[in-house]
């Protein structure tokens, strides 16, 4: 359940570590995604070359983003659709609500969209008396639990099937209480039946977009369930909500990105459905929406274009950095306390909401570098997390003790002779203090470390001294 009072990152991480159910569920990240991605990548020898091309094409697009957005807009209008620019999350919510009102919406179905989570769309529509039905299986479960997704492509990776069965019994009214929901297919079948009714009666369907294509004015969604397609095909009005950096120039560019997206995320060669939607139904079409709206969200992204975090706008939200992150794999997504978790969230969240709201995130990393290695867009995530740490430090936000300690260290580190002299003096002292065990189980000012593990003592000499000695031996 959603927390009433926000915890610090340290508190929620500790709680996640002690949560046996969560720890069991998180094993699925390691068992599933990591192996599947490696297999899919191995089957495509051109993967690294495509990664380089995708990085270059996104960089190119971002440098001409204004022009590509204008070209895209022209094509959408040409195909009979409408484009709405939304500078802020509040603007986007208002625009979507207005379109829903004009469409006379009582029920809205939704495909999975992180941008809609980012702007808090559901609560806004519900406050206006509109029923919102999430139709992606994971998102449906999240919705009936009143939670946020814990992963950008696998919203309920933090749950086990028994917990979901309890939610279904509670939320799906009018079904026999003693029905069997013990197997995963039972749960899928029940969600299918419940949501089918929603698909057939909604007045408006809202989806996100994985890509927007300037050449044709198309929006692209990738799904496996088919819920996104039912959402954009059946209701009379289709609203796409997408952030401005989703744009690529051409269909060929979309092909390059699509070859990387599913392989990096779920480890599939391609998702079951990849749908290019261009405008409303054409004259004579027997199905498809009569109205087609695109809401283009900025919400802090244009600012990212200017500075150190532009490369983050290459992100295609595949989730590979979450799947391969040792911190994410240990605590799950909710402990981060931000909608976008894991390495990509640690960089994006402070950019979107300000570092004040996300100070712990760039520190929630072991800096092992796996995220950058598996990123299909080669985003330098560790370097950008470091950049956030620097900014945080420059603002003087970290605790005084931490800043003083770092200053002291920096003072010595900038003076090699002093540094070595101190090292030579301190190392033997530590050896003596540690005694026969060679480890410390408690140290002043280092309780956070020694509470949970020992600190090994030096072996006797400093690294520099050993290095000199051994080079001399050769």
């Amino acid at each position: 359940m959603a927390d009433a009072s926000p915890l610090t990152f340290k508190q929620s991480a500790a709680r996640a570590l002690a949560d046996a159910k969560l720890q069991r569920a998180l094993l699925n990240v390691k068992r599933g995604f990591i192996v599947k991605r490696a297999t899919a990548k191995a089957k495509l020898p051109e993967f690294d070359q495509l990664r380089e091309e995708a990085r270059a094409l996104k960089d190119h697009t971002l440098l001409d983003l204004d022009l590509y957005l204008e070209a895209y807009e022209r094509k959408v209008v040409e195909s009979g659709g409408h484009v709405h620019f939304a500078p802020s999350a509040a603007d986007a919510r208002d625009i979507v609500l207005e379109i829903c009102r004009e469409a006379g919406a009582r029920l809205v179905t939704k495909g999975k969209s992180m941008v809609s989570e980012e702007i808090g769309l559901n609560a806004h529509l519900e406050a206006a008396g509109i029923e919102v039905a999430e139709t992606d299986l994971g998102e449906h479960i999240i919705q009936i639990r009143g939670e946020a997704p814990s992963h950008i492509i696998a919203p309920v990776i933090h749950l086990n099937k028994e917990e979901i069965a309890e939610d279904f019994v509670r939320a799906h009214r009018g079904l026999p209480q003693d029905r069997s929901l013990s197997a995963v297919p039972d749960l899928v079948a029940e969600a299918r039946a419940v949501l089918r009714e929603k698909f057939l009666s909604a007045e408006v369907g809202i989806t996100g977009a994985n890509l927007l294509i300037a050449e044709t004015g198309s929006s692209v969604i990738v799904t496996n369930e088919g819920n996104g397609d039912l959402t954009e095909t059946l209701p009379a009005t289709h609203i796409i909500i997408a952030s401005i950096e989703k744009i690529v120039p051409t269909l060929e560019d979309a092909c390059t990105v699509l070859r990387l997206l599913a392989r990096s995320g779920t480890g599939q060669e391609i998702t079951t459905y990849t749908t290019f939607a261009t405008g409303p139904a054409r004259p004579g079409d027997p199905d498809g929406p009569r109205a087609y709206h695109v809401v283009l969200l900025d919400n802090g992204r244009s600012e990212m274009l200017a500075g150190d975090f532009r490369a983050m706008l290459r992100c295609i939200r595949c989730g590979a950095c979450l799947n391969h992150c040792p911190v994410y794999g240990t605590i799950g997504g909710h402990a981060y306390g931000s909608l976008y978790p894991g390495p990509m969230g640690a960089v994006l969240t402070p950019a979107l909401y300000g570092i004040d709201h996300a100070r712990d995130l760039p520190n929630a990393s072991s800096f092992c570098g796996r995220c950058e290695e598996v990123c299909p867009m080669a985003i330098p995530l560790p370097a950008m997390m470091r950049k956030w740490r620097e900014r945080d430090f420059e603002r003087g936000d970290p605790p005084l003790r931490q800043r003083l300690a770092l200053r002291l260290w920096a003072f010595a580190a900038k003076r090699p002779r002093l540094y070595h002299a101190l090292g030579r003096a301190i190392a033997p002292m530590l050896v003596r203090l540690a005694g026969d065990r060679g480890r410390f189980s408690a140290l002043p000012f280092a309780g956070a470390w020694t509470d949970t593990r020992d600190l090994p003592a030096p072996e006797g000499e400093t690294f520099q001294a050993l290095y000199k000695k051994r080079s001399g031996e050769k």
Partner: protein
Amino acid sequence: MIATDQARALVLSRIRAALGITTKDRTREAAVEERLRRHPRGTIPARARARHEALIDLMTAMLTSQGAEVTRAATPEDAVRVIADDLGAHDLPSVLRMGSDPVLGALPWDAVPALQRRTGRAEARDRAALSRAVTAAAETGTLFLVSGNDNPTTLAFLPESHFILVRAGDVVGSYEEAFDHLRALYGEGGLPRSVNLISGPSRTADIEQTIVRGAHGPKRLHVVILG
């Protein structure tokens, strides 16, 4: 609520400010127009550049591994029989929903008189539907369906059983070749309302990473390659 024009101008001006663009620059515009007009290709995987028969084999293997059934039909009669037999084997009524696609319409349906065909978009109660893919990319076993009266989009998502017929000659290696095929049919710079790339039956792995087929779309996909 923010005025539409004002919002548009604000977002575009923020982008230009962030990129350090102060004046209208014809060279930038020309470069963008050129890229959109030429739409250059990136790297195409070697597996998509095989002989045609090898591509059909690859197509079949990919679709099968993604949970679809695939049957090669040598003749139009065979194609019709494959569909009728499938319905029978799965205890489905001998009723098929389909659009007005001329290629499908020209199949020798008389070969199986018991099979009823209903024309139009799919309705909630339809159990089985047939669509034609205008092209297919063998590299991942991906069928390209386009919306319209010939093959309404709902056929591919509402019924539990979906058949897709593709002519062997329409199978190409890569996505790029498939899009070129669409450009030849529908012109440059535009697409039909919906282009649906389908690579298997509907599935989900949201719960415990367990793959279950038939999430919201068809539980079964049977692809018939004709010729």
